[in-house]
């Protein structure tokens, strides 16, 4: 089995599905001839032609809104928003139309599209190239929000996403794009939406994360005392949520730390903490802790690594919650 980076695995998934289903079209800024600014769509236009791998005008609402129309009329569009910071202009179409058409029409009109979004910080990029807006799309009803962080999961989940009858946002952690490789099958396989993965089993404390932060958590775990038994969960999908995996783990450990890049307030970490309050109250041995980006704007490159949770911050929280 070939070793692939995240970029390669996603490219491979797109290739796999475009070959299988001619309704699939990729569209976005620079995704065609240039193969995307991260080269995720590299080679696809050559293989499938400019009518299926489409360079669009610089117009995010246009990309999202016309993708909705494409999906309504039976295509399977995969729009790319070049960076998560440019989802703003597409926000209205995404949350108010893509997410709502099925409900609005009592099932008569559906919008099976998959928005691909390079996502998150850590690559020293300019403003709006390093944000983590995922919670926004969890709060707005009607979307599925996927945040895989490994090449294997990404390919399998992207194939699930494209085949899903509902709109999916597929967040791709830029920081992981080329920094990690693993074996990924060339052929067709899927990883289900809505299932978390237990990355490390443990009994003392549960660490819950997703996206690039999973790697920071792993690093943190490395530095912890041998006798501390940590369970690490990679949510992979943040909406719909895998309640069972989380609740079983925290019921077992009685302690939890949630790690995300996004700012803390009103975030996915808040939701997870509230859920643990509600579902595991009597099992909690310590208050659930949130290790997050700060409640300020993601700084420019010089300070971004001080904004993002890192192994020491995560390790400290784990130790404190265990010592509580």
């Amino acid at each position, binding site marked *: 089995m070939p070793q692939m980076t995240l970029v390669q695995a996603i490219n491979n998934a797109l290739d796999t599905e475009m070959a299988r289903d001619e309704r699939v*079209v990729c569209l976005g800024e620079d995704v065609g001839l240039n193969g995307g600014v991260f080269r995720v769509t590299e080679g696809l236009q050559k293989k499938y032609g400019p009518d299926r791998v489409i360079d669009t005008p610089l117009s995010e609402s246009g990309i999202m809104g016309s993708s*909705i129309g494409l999906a*309504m009329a039976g*295509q399977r569009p995969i729009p790319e928003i070049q960076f998560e910071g440019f989802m703003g202009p597409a926000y209205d179409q995404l949350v108010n139309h893509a997410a709502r058409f*099925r409900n609005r029409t*009592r099932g008569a009109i559906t919008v099976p599209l998959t928005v691909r979004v390079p996502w998150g910080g850590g690559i020293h990029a300019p403003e709006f190239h390093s944000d983590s807006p995922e919670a926004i799309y969890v709060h707005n009803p009607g979307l599925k929000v996927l945040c895989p962080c490994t090449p294997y999961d990404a390919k399998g989940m992207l194939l699930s996403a494209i085949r899903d009858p509902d709109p999916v946002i597929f967040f791709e952690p830029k920081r992981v794009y080329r920094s990690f490789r693993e074996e990924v099958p060339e052929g067709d396989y899927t990883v289900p939406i809505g299932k978390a993965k237990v990355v490390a089993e443990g009994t003392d404390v549960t660490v819950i994360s997703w996206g690039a932060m999973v790697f920071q958590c792993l690093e943190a775990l490395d530095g912890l005392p041998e006798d501390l038994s940590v369970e690490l969960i990679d949510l992979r999908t943040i909406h719909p949520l895998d309640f069972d995996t989380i609740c079983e783990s925290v019921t077992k450990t009685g302690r939890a730390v949630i790690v995300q890049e996004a700012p803390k307030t009103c975030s996915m970490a808040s939701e997870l903490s509230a859920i643990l309050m509600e579902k595991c109250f*009597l099992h909690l041995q310590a208050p659930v802790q949130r290790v997050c980006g700060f409640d300020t704007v993601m700084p420019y490159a010089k300070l971004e690594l001080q904004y993002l949770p890192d192994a020491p911050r995560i390790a400290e929280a784990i130790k404190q919650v265990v010592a509580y």
Partner: protein
Amino acid sequence: MPIRKVYENSIEFVQVMDEQGVIDERLGKDLLSDEQITFLYEKMVEYRRLDEIAFTLQRSGRMYTYPQNKGQEAAALGSGFALRKGVDWLVPCYRENGALFLHGLPPELIFLHWMGDERGNAIPAGVNVTPIAIPIGTQMLHATGMAWAFKQRKEDRVVCTYFGDGATSEGDFHEAMNFATTFKVPCIFFCQNNQWAISVPREQQMASETVAQKGFAYGARSIQVDGNDLLAVYKVTLEARERARAGEGPTIIEAVTYRLGDHTTADDARRYRDSEEVAAWAQKDPMIRLRKYLEGKGLWNDAKQQVVEDRAKAFCSEIVKKSEGIAKPDVNDMFDYLYAEMPEELRRQKETLRTHSLGQDPSQAGLRSSAASAR
């Protein structure tokens, strides 16, 4: 030459039938048969009566809000008639009911929508119409995408999207026009310029002399038409449809018309516009004009009118009955259609009609005594 002209263009205004109901023979020849015109006039009467009934329903508390179509029926019916039922698609706003009805939309669905019922948007399969769009300007991109899909699949279909003069101020209008022209999709952009966007008159909405010239920004074919002239509207829409089918891309049509009623039943237009203006436009009512034409040709008289009025009455009662006769939606309805597969938490909320965990899982309430010691 250091200063040279690199682009020029102009907008034409098309009228086929003047305000006295007299047709320009050159333009009007072979456009529509007398039977077709009679049919469309009869529909116009029926739909006008239905519009009036909706208004009274709202006034008596049986409908929540309703935007009257009154005065704009020629634009809706003329354009709708130029599109192929069951083949082409209509992507409306909310003031072109007649076009939707012509294409087979059950009128009670429009009533249901305004009665606060999502089932009004559950368009039956085979009816090529999308639901009323509440957020102004957003539907044009859906139309563009749909037309693009038909182009990608080489299906011979045209999409026509409707919007108002106010809608052209939204960014989405711009992005839709630009996508549609750049990818040459078979889409018609049909603007009902009814001179007002709630209380804002066209001149305060834009500094351009016409809406049609906005098409120049996209290299689109752009035309202005007398929107109260059913024949002219039919003519330019048919031309736009054929251009679209021939792969020549989108046309923007500005139908110059007027909103004779309030913006919606929640509005009182007397607060912001002169009664003289309304009175002047009432003279141009497309229904009166069409009747004059038919009468001039000896095709119409009071007796025929009475027959149509009676039919309209029956039609209206039927629609009222259908829309009011339906049982209130089940509360499950608000959960059942959000996703194809219901997420676990949503299912809990549906089953308990509760969001608080003790309400969702009452057994948890008893947990404390048994588990507290474990803590």
